[in-house]
């Protein structure tokens, strides 16, 4: 399998894992290891001495072979997102930023206008910019034009587990994009990750589906294999769809019939 190119970075894994909502740091670390992911998202938050376990920098630093991709979650405007991105880069040393701007906590839909503006500034500032976006082909193209390293359309609402409800729009984005398209948010099952890869996505980003699973490490492994299977199937060449049955066994010369 070839690799995933994001900016100047090359990854053999095409599963990006989020670190939120795990029941414990130990469960998160085990899931990351089981997934084989090389790119994980984190969120910038105030230090709280009463919740020392919230600080993931130490545990993540001890896992070899992963790169951090801080997100800008919590930002409601481009200015806030840019500020968070710069602080995160200073802290992580990573050039990656997941631009995530959602002003409404009820639906968490990304604000396309603020997202575009934040991306424009962060590309200029030398980040590898990975925007989380609505599944909008026009916006995706605009973000590619200003130098984003990828676009990450949502499959469905964050944490909803409603799967790849935006599939047809994602197909259009894939068709029109020269940069990697990564489905981010809403995936519930490995089969949906597989389907995303089969349709042409370059990677998938999963968090809740792994974090809240009964066995997060096992689910992470299942997602990793599903992503690989989807990519392999796409490369192998999926058969065309037919509106009619097409026999796989001979329909003639059956036992004693004349034709």
């Amino acid at each position: 399998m070839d690799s995933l190119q994001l900016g100047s970075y090359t990854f053999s894994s095409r599963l990006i894992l989020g670190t939120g909502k795990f029941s414990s740091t130990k469960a998160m670390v085990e899931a990351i290891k089981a997934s084989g992911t090389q790119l994980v998202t984190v969120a910038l938050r105030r230090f709280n001495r009463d919740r020392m376990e919230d600080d993931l920098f130490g545990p993540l630093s001890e896992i070899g072979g992963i790169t951090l991709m801080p997100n800008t979650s919590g930002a409601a405007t481009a200015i806030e997102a840019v500020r968070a991105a710069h602080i995160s880069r200073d802290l992580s040393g990573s050039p990656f930023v997941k631009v995530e701007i959602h002003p409404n906590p009820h639906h968490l839909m990304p604000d396309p206008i603020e997202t575009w503006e934040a991306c424009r500034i962060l590309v200029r500032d030398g980040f590898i910019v990975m925007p989380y976006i609505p599944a909008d082909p026009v916006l995706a193209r605009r973000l590619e034009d200003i130098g984003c390293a990828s676009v990450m359309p949502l499959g469905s609402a964050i944490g909803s587990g409603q799967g790849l409800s935006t599939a047809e729009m994602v197909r259009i984005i894939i068709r029109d994009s020269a940069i990697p398209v990564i489905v981010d948010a809403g995936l519930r099952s490995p089969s949906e990750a597989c389907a995303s890869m089969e349709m042409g996505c370059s990677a998938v980003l999963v968090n809740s589906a792994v974090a809240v699973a009964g066995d997060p490490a096992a689910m992470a492994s299942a997602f990793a294999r599903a992503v690989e299977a989807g990519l392999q199937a796409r490369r192998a060449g999926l058969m065309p769809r037919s509106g009619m049955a097409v026999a796989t066994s001979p329909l003639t010369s059956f036992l004693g019939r004349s034709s």
Partner: protein
Amino acid sequence: MATIPIILNGERSEIPSGSSAADIPLLAGVGNQPVAIVVNGVVVHPLDRSSLILSEHDEVEVLVFAGGG
């Protein structure tokens, strides 16, 4: 020991007069892990922390990476 009031992660706090941004991790109860420090909205890089002496009513934020998707 003379102290000055600052706002530390959104809450009023008293710190020794003459404290620098480099003293903040210890004062905030942070261990050895890396943190980001923002004073009055400006990020203070680790190499600049000891030279930034905090003043009364400075707003200081200590930031870490938490779980997020």
